[in-house]
């Protein structure tokens, strides 16, 4: 007994330290999570606040003093074209994603594999194209859109957005294709497949993280792009979210805060969920694209 009590527990000190460190770590993570989420929390709370509650001096934005109301959601869905904006944005987004993949997948593969040193240079050139900002291009592009008779038509956006998304996606995918050993393609050729089949069955599945990155990047681009959307489309029923919401829910200097925030939140939630679902692959995608090539 005596020896037992005399021996200090060797794990006692370090264990306490470990618990302390764990608690500190968790607290810090929770704090930053809350910090990052707070704008969305405020948006969620404000959506259901009455006007009096929202504009009351000294009131907390996280709390209700009056009864929460659905009035503003009703207003957003029934008195504005919000649903048609969502539909337009979705249609444009999906179409642009498809066009981007169809163009950038073969381009990136070719640049990564078939042209050797010229591939590098061509890839560099494409990236430079990506660096030209839309604010410089929208005037000449507007004239082209008018000549094509595509004003107030979603096709104008579907045609122009790839000018931003294709160079970036090609560059990103190039890094991916370069990281896939050419021997895998050759093995598929020897195993009895054509080059096209080898690409489809071996290269594409391995480049999936890159493809997901491209889809997410391109889709969010079409969601938030403003200048082209504002310039090419002026008819309210053809507008997309990025221009429709601010034009309908801001009149002069009056901001209809509750529906405005609700409209943003409703779009942000699904996009956020998708981002989280693919977070690991996205990070892998962007870092790979950044390091390679």
């Amino acid at each position: 007994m005596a020896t037992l009590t005399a021996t200090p527990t060797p794990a006692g000190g370090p264990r306490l330290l470990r618990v302390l460190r764990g608690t500190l770590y968790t607290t810090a993570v929770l704090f930053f999570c809350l910090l990052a989420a707070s704008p969305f929390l405020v948006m969620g709370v404000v959506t259901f606040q009455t006007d009096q509650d929202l504009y009351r001096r000294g009131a907390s934005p996280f709390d209700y003093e009056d009864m929460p109301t659905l009035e503003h959601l009703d207003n957003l869905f029934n008195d504005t074209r919000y649903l048609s904006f969502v539909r337009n944005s979705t249609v444009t987004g999906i179409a642009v994603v498809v066009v981007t993949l169809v163009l950038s997948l073969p381009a990136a593969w070719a640049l990564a594999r078939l042209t050797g040193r010229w591939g590098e240079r061509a890839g560099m050139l494409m990236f430079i194209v990506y660096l030209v900002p839309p604010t410089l291009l929208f005037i000449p592009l507007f004239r082209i859109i008018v000549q094509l008779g595509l004003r107030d038509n979603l096709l104008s956006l579907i045609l122009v957005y790839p000018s931003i998304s294709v160079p970036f996606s090609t560059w990103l995918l190039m890094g991916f294709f370069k990281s896939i050993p050419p021997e895998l393609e050759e093995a598929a050729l020897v195993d009895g497949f054509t080059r096209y089949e080898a690409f489809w069955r071996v290269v594409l599945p391995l480049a999936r993280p890159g493809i997901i990155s491209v889809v997410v990047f391109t889709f969010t681009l079409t969601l938030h792009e403003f200048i082209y959307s504002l310039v090419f489309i002026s008819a309210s029923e053809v507008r997309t979210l990025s221009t429709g919401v601010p034009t309908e829910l801001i009149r002069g200097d009056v901001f209809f805060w509750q529906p405005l925030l609700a409209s943003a939140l409703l779009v942000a939630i699904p996009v956020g969920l998708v981002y989280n679902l693919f977070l690991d692959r996205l990070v892998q995608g962007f870092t790979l694209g950044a390091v390679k090539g």
Partner: protein
Amino acid sequence: MSEVNLKGVVKRFGDVQAVAGVDLHINSGEFLVVLGPSGCGKTTLMRTIAGLEKPEEGQISIGARDVTALPPRKRGIAMVFQSYALYPHMSVAGNIGFPLKAQGRCPDRAEREQRVYQAAQMVSIEHLLDRRPRQLSGGERQRVAIARAIVSQPEVLLLDEPLSNLDAKLRAYARDELKGFQRKLGITTVFVTHDQIEAMGLGDRIVVMRDGLVQQVGPPQAIYDRPQNTFVATFLGSPGMNLQLVSDQVQRGFRPEHLLPLGELPPGAAHEPFSWRVTRVENLGSDRLLYGHLADFRGEMQLTVSRLPSNVTIEIPLDTVCEFGVAHDQLHFFDVASGERLEEGVAA
């Protein structure tokens, strides 16, 4: 099972001739080893047979078919890559069955599974079929690659240094197994390696290549016993053949295991005496390597090696002149300028 014929095959990369005109006949069912140092064009030669490289000149035929212009999928070949090139996104079963999914090869699913299982059984990996390649050891990956290669019953099997990623112990075992499969299947096999032990141990015949050219073709023992030129003589054997200038035109060569103390030479055989100083001894367990220098006809010293088997227990004193000798029939003569072998009659 088919024979393979190469006629005047040339493959260039820019200004470099990786394969500089190769004629080769590979017999049906033969295990042919292409041996050479890295950069000698042996892998390129194999890739040309596979159809992964298009030769600038020459003709390749498999069986009775001229395949020079055909893509790999129409050549009836299979290949095991040095890195194995297993598809990381497929299971082992998916990898092995992949060639069967190629157009029209084996449309019936049940039959496909059956054949995948048989191929896996052949290399004893049927318990690994559900694994992913990254969960396998090097030796297991190699077997998957072999199973994938034999599942479609190719006419010709091409192996590109398939043992080089295995550790030394496993390699001897894998050599034995590989030779076993090949005998069982009777498939025409081309095996590329830079390892002469693999080449000697596996090949029915060996092709020694250098700088894109075939140096010598023949059974392993014949090449070892009668090297066609100094390159083959020094490349084969470890260490390679000793060379000694005997005049401006002629050099003679002898293998380390034939440079023996006078007492160890076969009794009564005519021999060439060599007096030399041994400066270093390496004991390798199974034999001893003696390093020293021999003077050539101009009096310049050349590094020379002798190999004594472990049953020769005679004490070799360092830095003392010792009397050694080489039996006459173990001496080889080569032209100095071209390096080509000279017949004994010419040399004498």
